[in-house]
């Protein structure tokens, strides 16, 4: 901590710098390495003989004539049908984010403005729902979905992801709405607004930071989900993450590892860009529940 009276010894400063550098290496190097390796051929990135091939590109030179190759990308996106998976991911993400923000803001606003006892119990129930492992919920969905014949399609998955996402969105937006003074909507009510009008015209305009944070978290959940999408979607409708898993192969059929590597990079890059732009919101979202509560 940088306080006026707090003098740090040179040794402590050096130690601190070294620690941060080491930590950042541990945190970031795996991603840099995967990015680097995605432009090599399999024999280099997963070399049986010498790991240095991944840097010197020994086999990549022999197979493609250059030190870098984008073969893994073109193959995964065309032959591997990764374009379809990313199209599905975009559909799922857009719908999940917009629907869960719509439901979440309404519900959280009501919770934050209610003085009744049941508001507390609803928040507690949401906390318990938040703790449920997704796979246990999926084991509850599968059978009824098969019977109703709504398994495998995108709309079902979107609704399920919205619902799974609600507890967290509610808590997050609740803590944001709490910071908006009650007097603001009360004066609007006195002026003759209905609750919905006060919500729509008075509260929402000042809530954008909170809504962006909640939206980002819904986006990350929908974009990153594996459990729900892998089990509730059929092969045709798979999103990116289950698609990556399908490239890994199983005992029965050999997968295509380089496809998986390039797909991992393709799927991670947009997410990193997004977080870079919205870093402030992500951090305020993570701390909203913790520091204020």
């Amino acid at each position, binding site marked *: 901590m940088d306080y006026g009276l707090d003098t740090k010894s040179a040794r402590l400063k050096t130690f601190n710098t070294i620690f*941060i550098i080491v930590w950042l290496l541990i945190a970031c190097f795996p991603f840099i390495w995967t990015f680097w390796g995605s432009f090599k051929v399999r024999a280099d990135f997963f070399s049986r003989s010498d790991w240095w091939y*991944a840097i010197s590109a020994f086999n990549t030179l022999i197979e493609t004539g250059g030190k870098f190759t984008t073969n893994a990308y073109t193959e995964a996106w065309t032959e591997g049908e990764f374009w379809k998976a990313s199209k599905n991911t975009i559909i799922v993400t857009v719908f999940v984010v917009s629907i869960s923000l719509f439901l979440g803001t*309404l*519900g959280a606003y009501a919770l934050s403005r209610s003085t*009744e006892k049941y508001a507390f119990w609803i928040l*507690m129930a949401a906390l318990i729902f938040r703790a449920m492992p997704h796979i246990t919920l999926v084991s509850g969905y599968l*059978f009824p979905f098969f019977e109703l014949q709504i398994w495998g399609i995108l709309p079902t998955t979107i609704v399920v992801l919205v*619902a799974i996402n609600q507890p967290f969105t509610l808590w997050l937006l609740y803590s944001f709405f709490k910071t908006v003074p009650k007097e603001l909507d009360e004066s609007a009510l006195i002026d003759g607004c209905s609750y919905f009008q006060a919500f729509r015209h008075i509260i929402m305009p000042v809530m954008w930071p909170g809504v962006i944070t909640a939206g980002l978290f819904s986006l990350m959940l929908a974009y990153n989900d594996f459990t729900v999408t892998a089990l509730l979607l059929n092969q045709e409708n798979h999103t990116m993450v289950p698609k990556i898993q399908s490239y890994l192969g199983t005992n029965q059929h050999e997968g295509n590892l380089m496809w998986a590597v390039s797909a991992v990079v393709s799927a991670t890059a947009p997410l990193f860009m997004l977080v870079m732009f919205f870093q402030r919101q992500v951090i305020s979202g993570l701390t909203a529940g*913790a520091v204020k509560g």
Partner: protein
Amino acid sequence: MPNKTFFWFFLPTGLAMILFIGLPIISTGIQSFYAQHDQVVKEVKKCDPFGCTVSIVVDNEETTKIRDAKPLGKFNGFGTYTDRNHLAVDEIKKFWNETGSFGAFVDQVTNLPFYKALIFTLTYCLFVTPNVLLLGFIIALSLNAVARKIRGPLIFGTILPMIVTPLVGSLVLFWMIDSQGIIGANIQNLMNDPYLSLKSSKTLTWITIIIYGIWHHSPFAFVVFYAALQTVPQEPIEAAIIDGASRFQRIKHIVLPHIYPVVTFVALISLMDNFRVFEPIIGFSAEGSAQSLSWLIYDNLVNEEVILFGSAAATSMMTIIGIAILLAPVLIRTWKEFKTAR
């Protein structure tokens, strides 16, 4: 807010949660009391010039008919809970009577699928959660000491492991640690053991998954602690410096008590998340030596011949009970606070 207005505002989200979180839990509960139908078999007499043989084959037509009539399966009561793949009551009784020493008994029990998974899940929670708290706190302290200007990019680098999905995160690490990856190959060279690999050793696999867990969850603890550190008041710290308190004493007696509520929050969240560990097992292809409760459910649900709804549901119910036990202290505390606040 009047009750009626509250109702209409809350209805959409409430309906979504009841339909897709509340009902599935009930549906899981019901399914756990049923088991899939046995296959109907029939005797087929086959005659060839050398004589007749009677063989038993599956009567697919009959089996489908029964399955269509009662898709939920046959009622099994608590049968699924007590069978070999879950609580294994009979097996444990048998082991208790047959094995000589207590060590051998424990050994036998921990080889049963459910207990094996339970032990891995608990070990994972036990090692990952405290280390996440510790590492997250240290990173927060040390980033808090660097110049404000360069903190932005440093924070971005720190939170990368957290924002990727666990499957991708574990794959990225696995590709390096695997025997054909950069770290794995170098460790083999260093140890001079060409057969050393992740898959060959159970202990190594467990350690790798636990390290992955710490790597993935620490950024979350860091972010929360970092934000909490910004709210620590300066005056008591300055007073402590004047009184000659060491850096360690200042952290122990001023900073830690101040951020204590946040520590319990992070501990709770990461305990809940660690309890459902599942994707790293797929990412590290560690199914052979490490199985978690969530993985058992997944395995039942992707079963190729018949989806084992009953078995998956029984494991799910027991996982939910586990979560309830973890959450109980928090709920009781909140309830007490709520009662005194009134």
